[in-house]
């Protein structure tokens, strides 16, 4: 790589020039996060319910899942899904099999997030006063209605701030998908830097795009939290 000359007047130019590529990457990153959190929140809620179940056949597998996911690095999970699993399937089926990198990324991030989201929901549901379910059941609501109309709305309100943390973490973790060739923000930036040798302004641009996205998520969640707030 050629040595970079200190040319601050060039930096602004490169910052502007890299932006379209970074925005393309941002679009991919947001797409991946939204799809992954659809998996994360719904599967996470299921895992939380399994963990709260009194049956060992339900809560032990759920606990193992959470421990496995939390106990291994996300980068390893991504590589496992993109390289490890296809190689196993190819070996077993005797035919080459591969997975789309974006799909692999969505699945890896989604099922990773589900483990953390499940802990959020588990504590949220567990923190609810037992009197709430008793009152609902005593009124003649069945278990499902009690969960749907009494437990879930309250647990969800409680869960918004920690879920916000989880969404922000996941957005930043999309950068890990650069290693399997997903053209997200970091990858797009790296390609630009390699082409132009404008390394410093490119990484500044990358950081700015992440900041803008994470602040947006934080503000959307603050808005939702305000909207759902019960008057006191």
């Amino acid at each position, binding site marked *: 790589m050629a040595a970079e000359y200190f040319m601050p007047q060039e930096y602004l130019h490169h910052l502007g020039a890299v932006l379209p590529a970074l925005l393309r990457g941002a679009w991919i990153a947001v797409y991946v996060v939204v799809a992954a959190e659809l998996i994360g929140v719904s599967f996470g809620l299921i895992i939380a319910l399994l963990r709260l179940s009194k049956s060992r056949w339900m809560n032990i597998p759920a606990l193992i899942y959470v421990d496995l996911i939390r106990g291994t690095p996300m980068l390893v999970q991504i590589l496992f899904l993109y390289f490890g699993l296809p190689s196993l399937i190819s070996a077993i089926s005797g035919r080459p099999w591969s997975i789309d990198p974006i799909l692999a990324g969505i699945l890896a991030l989604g099922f990773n997030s589900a483990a953390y989201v499940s802990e959020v929901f588990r504590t949220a549901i567990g923190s609810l*006063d037992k*009197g*709430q379910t*008793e*009152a*609902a*059941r*005593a*009124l*003649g*609501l*069945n278990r499902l*209605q009690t969960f749907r*109309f*009494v437990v879930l*709305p*309250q647990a969800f*309100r409680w869960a918004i701030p920690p879920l916000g943390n989880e969404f922000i973490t996941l957005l930043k973790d999309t950068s890990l998908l650069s290693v399997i060739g997903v053209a997200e923000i970091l990858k797009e930036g790296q390609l630009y830097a390699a082409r132009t040798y404008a390394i410093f302004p490119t990484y500044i641009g990358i950081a700015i795009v992440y900041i803008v996205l994470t602040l947006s998520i934080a503000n959307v969640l603050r808005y939702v939290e305000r909207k759902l707030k*019960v*008057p*006191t």
Partner: protein
Amino acid sequence: MIEVTALHKSFGQLHVLRGVDLKVEANQTVCLLGSSGSGKSTLLRCLNLLEVPTSGRIIIDGRNVTDRNTSMTDVCRNVGMVFQQFNLFPHLSVLKNITLAPLKTGLQKPAEANELAMQLLKQVGLEDKAPAYPSQLSGGQKQRVAIARALAMRPKVMLFDEPTSALDPEMVGEVLAVMKSLAHQMTIMAVTHEMSFAKDAADRILFMDQGVIVEDAPPAEFFANPKTDRAKQFLNTIH
């Protein structure tokens, strides 16, 4: 209306109910008295299956509550309960607290449920609080809403589990007044420490000790002339 035979309930090693037999006629008001740990609340909570009895039989309005095939949901549509801690749903307005169960169980249509809810709120003196949230109410108001909420299912039986114990003294009266207004309109079983309610509104006093009913008498008789030493002792500590 209520028929309890040889009811037992244990929590692990703790034998709380030790053979309760009881018959309550329709529209009677019955007060359960006894010191804490005597099993009053547990008896009440067995009647709507918040606690599953260990053995024995409960029949309410001809329905065998203790039958395995009877679901809690079916039992609770006829049996309302008011709790010590109110247990209003904090995320719903007063009106929605009251209409939630009638709507979701399909008992009433929206217009009908709203109309009944407003009528019940008027009955408990809180019609202006329909749009308020539970956190905006005083303890006495919360408990009156909780009573209206239970009544909205049009139950035949109402169970009161120490409904005034969590209230500031000046709010006890307003809740008792609502409870008194219900006497003889429906079958009522109340666990209470409010002797004024027991004296004025109850048809019968059941005195419990160590998991059994040891006295069953009209209030005048019970308060003037308790038969057991345990009841005499209890009344002495109250006065």
